């Protein structure tokens, strides 16, 4: 049996280190030992398949039993490709976020801001055959968090992707252009490479915007691609 084609190593500087001390939560949770190399085997080059018939999509987070959520309605859409620019079709995209006031509908979130019973805090869609996805949601609010003095998370939406393999799993956060809090956020700044960091900021896009309805933001994401040639072991 021929060896599975491995996925490419991450480009230097484009991924955050585990040890990112400005984000205090990392101090006791990052490994001190170097990661142990593992040439990809079938365990790493295969992965779960999720389908819409079993994992119900929810693309519209702005309405619960016909009642609209409060806040600024926005559309978030984009394309998921691999490192060779090929679309990643039919892959599951999950999101979760705070509501317009900066409050998560989660028991651990004790921020003194109102919950919105008409806002879905999470959604799920599948990319189409061209790797495209689209959510309708509410612009999330900023919220304080216990890190440094007067720490506030910039507005953000959490994203989760699977791609074709266990090795292509990606969890990230999408930010908004022009947010003054980005300059102070240690989670955003944990990504060393400036260009890689700024790709986490969505682009305001009139083509995604729907007239008289909702502003549109484009958030394109790249998942790992396969190595061009099989590596030795």
């Amino acid at each position, binding site marked *: 049996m021929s060896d599975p084609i491995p996925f490419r190593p991450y480009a230097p500087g484009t991924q955050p280190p585990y040890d990112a001390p400005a984000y205090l939560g990392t101090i006791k949770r990052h490994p001190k030992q170097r990661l*142990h190399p*593992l040439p990809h085997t079938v365990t790493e080059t295969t992965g779960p398949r999720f389908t819409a018939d079993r994992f119900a999509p929810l693309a519209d987070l702005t309405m619960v039993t016909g009642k609209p959520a409060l806040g600024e309605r926005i559309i978030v859409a984009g394309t998921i490709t691999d490192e060779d620019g090929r679309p990643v079709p039919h892959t599951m995209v999950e999101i979760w976020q705070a509501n317009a006031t900066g409050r998560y509908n989660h028991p651990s979130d004790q921020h003194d801001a109102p919950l919105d019973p008409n806002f879905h805090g999470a959604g799920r869609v599948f990319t189409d055959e061209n790797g495209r996805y689209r959510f309708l949601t509410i612009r999330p609010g900023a919220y304080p968090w216990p890190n440094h003095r007067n720490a506030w998370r910039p507005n953000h939406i959490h994203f*989760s992707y699977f791609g074709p393999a266990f090795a292509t799993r990606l969890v990230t956060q999408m930010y908004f252009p022009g947010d003054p809090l980005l300059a102070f956020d240690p989670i955003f700044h944990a990504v060393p490479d400036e260009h890689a960091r700024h*790709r986490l900021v969505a682009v305001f896009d009139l083509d995604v915007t729907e007239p008289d309805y909702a502003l549109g933001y484009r958030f394109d994401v790249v998942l790992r*691609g396969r190595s061009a040639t099989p590596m030795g072991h």
Partner: protein
Amino acid sequence: MANTTASQTIGPYWHLLEDASWADLTRFGAEGAKITLTGAVLDGDGKPCPDACVEIWQSDPPASDRFPGFGRSNTDSAGMYRFTTVMPGPVAGRGNAQQAPHIAICILSRGLMRGLVTRAYFQGQTLNDSDPLLLSIEEPARRATLIARPAGEATWRMDVRLQGEGETVFLDV
């Protein structure tokens, strides 16, 4: 061509996604020997991480309509994750090698900027002695961090120590 998008922490509120049934990989009627895989996720002080997202993937038995191969579990106040799944068999390795039965694990949590990947092997499997990954870890004590131990009827336990003494071997995949 663009590089892979940067990872960001899953944070403390990922449970908004959670469907507790995902921790049971046999829920669609999988055949095979059912097992429980459980353990604690511990930080550098040995304290439980009660807000982690633990995901598993196994390439054996092959995923099908009845067996998703993938599971997701939260950790409870004691840092414990818990999966019900099917005992994996041996898996082809690179070249002519064979891999011992194993389950891939990815830990995502607040305080982790990226997922941490490891594997659970099963104590007593003969193939453990010739598994390429286990053999590549020279120190026996480090190698032992990847071995789940029997902990009751069809139950296997593997704790994950993120940092410090007994730190789990995490994999560069």
